[in-house]
């Protein structure tokens, strides 16, 4: 994405003024006694919500509480893929709005988030897989999303180093091609939202852990933190992997299990991979960053945990799968690996909005697909907080769907082994 006009002017001005220190992206504040809205979790979701609350609804008396540093959790640990080619109409509509916001985000935040819409391929290795891709393409097209089924000759043109022969154990039969999908600089998204929320008056409190939530007669009245108490009538739980540890403070049980998801990155190579390549059957997704490193992820770990330690089992598994797709990478070395934690709901769809406790809202269940939803999740929740009504776009994701037996089975989610 090209830098904006404002950025060029700023850049030019900075070039003639070498003594000027770089501006702070956000400030530190003393904890106020009271805020209109308290957002727990300083990741992309929480910060986006703070930004849209201020920008679209004029609500600026907002605190974002982060127990560590901004973007320390899933926002800085995901593989930065953005797409909207899901399987359920509810999911496609929702993520498509997110892609649209991402397309405008550099301009909107006046900060280059390096969104590169390079195209996204989901490979199918079995007849069943091809049928699923065909179904996804149909649903996507009905919802107005650019997405279609392509065959090995076109796959080879888009991605020449991919082995599309019939030699591998699971030969590539077809792919779902989604041109608007791509990758983004995830840290820039977090910093951009934090900066613009700060400029508009929201307080970002890092190293501030929530230790308790006060509820009186079924209504939220305040939050206790490691830095003191805050009075507030509205609390949003946007803590992703740690969501259950917050809701347990108000005695709400959620349909979530926290499971680590690992990823790794190779040494930098010359640019050779234009598209994002995903294989559900082989549990792998791979893209090449602007620096030339290959970012790779696999499926979630085999058991639940809050530990963010990496494992050799993961590295061995992903190396084998990547080599099946790209045999030419056999001498490439891994630079580093890491893990993030994902709170998995039973239907792979988020859980957003109201809870039985008045003023306690949730933005959880983000499993392996939370980062790509940050802008639209923040925007719709800001609308929900401002208007006290659930926007239509997120109504299918309400918490009460579980007892109403109205789940949103999103089998188009990544890394969940189906």
């Amino acid at each position, binding site marked *: 994405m090209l830098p904006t006009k404002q950025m060029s002017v700023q850049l030019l001005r900075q070039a003639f003024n070498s003594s000027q220190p770089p501006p702070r992206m956000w400030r530190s504040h003393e904890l106020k006694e009271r805020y209109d809205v308290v957002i727990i979790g300083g990741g992309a979701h929480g910060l986006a919500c703070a930004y849209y609350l201020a920008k679209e609804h004029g609500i600026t008396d907002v605190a974002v509480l982060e127990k560590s540093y901004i973007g320390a959790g899933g926002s800085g640990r995901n593989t930065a893929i953005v797409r909207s080619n899901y399987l359920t109409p509810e999911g496609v509509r929702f993520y498509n709005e997110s892609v649209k916001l991402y397309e405008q985000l550099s301009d909107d935040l006046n900060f280059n988030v390096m969104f590169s819409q390079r195209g996204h391929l989901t490979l199918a290795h079995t007849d069943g897989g091809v049928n699923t891709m065909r179904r996804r393409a149909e649903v996507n097209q009905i919802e107005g999303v650019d997405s279609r089924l392509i065959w090995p000759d076109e796959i080879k043109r888009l991605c020449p180093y991919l082995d599309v022969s019939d030699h591998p154990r699971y030969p590539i039969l077809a792919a779902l091609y989604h041109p608007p999908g791509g990758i983004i600089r995830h840290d820039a998204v977090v910093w951009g939202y934090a900066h613009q929320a700060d400029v508009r008056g929201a307080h970002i409190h890092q190293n501030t852990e929530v230790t308790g939530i006060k509820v009186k007669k079924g209504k939220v009245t305040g939050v206790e933190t490691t830095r003191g108490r805050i009075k507030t009538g509205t609390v949003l739980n946007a803590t992703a992997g740690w969501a*259950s540890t917050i809701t*347990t403070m108000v005695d709400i*049980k959620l349909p979530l299990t926290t499971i680590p998801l690992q990823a790794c990155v190779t040494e930098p190579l010359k640019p050779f991979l234009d598209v994002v390549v995903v294989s559900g059957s082989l549990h792998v997704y791979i893209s090449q960053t602007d620096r030339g490193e290959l970012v790779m992820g696999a499926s979630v770990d085999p058991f*639940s945990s809050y530990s963010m330690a990496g494992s050799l089992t993961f590295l061995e598994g992903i190396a084998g799968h990547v080599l099946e797709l790209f045999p030419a990478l056999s001498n490439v070395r891994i630079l580093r690996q890491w893990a993030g934690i994902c709170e998995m709901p039973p239907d792979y769809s988020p859980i957003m909005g109201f809870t039985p406790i008045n003023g306690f809202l949730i933005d959880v269940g983000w499993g392996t697909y939370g980062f790509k939803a940050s802008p639209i999740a923040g925007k719709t929740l800001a609308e929900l907080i401002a208007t006290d009504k659930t926007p239509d776009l997120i109504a299918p994701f309400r918490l009460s769907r579980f007892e109403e037996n109205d789940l949103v089975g999103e089998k188009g989610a990544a890394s969940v082994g189906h």
Partner: protein
Amino acid sequence: MLLLTCPNCGDRNVSEFRFGGELSSRPKDPSALSSAEWANYLYMRNNVMDAQTEWWHHNAGCGLWFLAERHTRTNEVIKTYPYAKRNA
């Protein structure tokens, strides 16, 4: 976590086992449950960041389903035991 102790087979590589989720109690009278109670049993989880009692299956070994107490932040296994000895 690399090893898990099967009550029958002793210390084995964790890759031989399948994780079965946190231990929950079955409803006593399923026909009397409301929708909310069913949802609670089917979907809702404590998901603690603490010691957790959970199911494991030694699927590449003796086939036993047994219980483990494991800390979910450190993955330290405190103990493993057969379901029949859960209150011992």
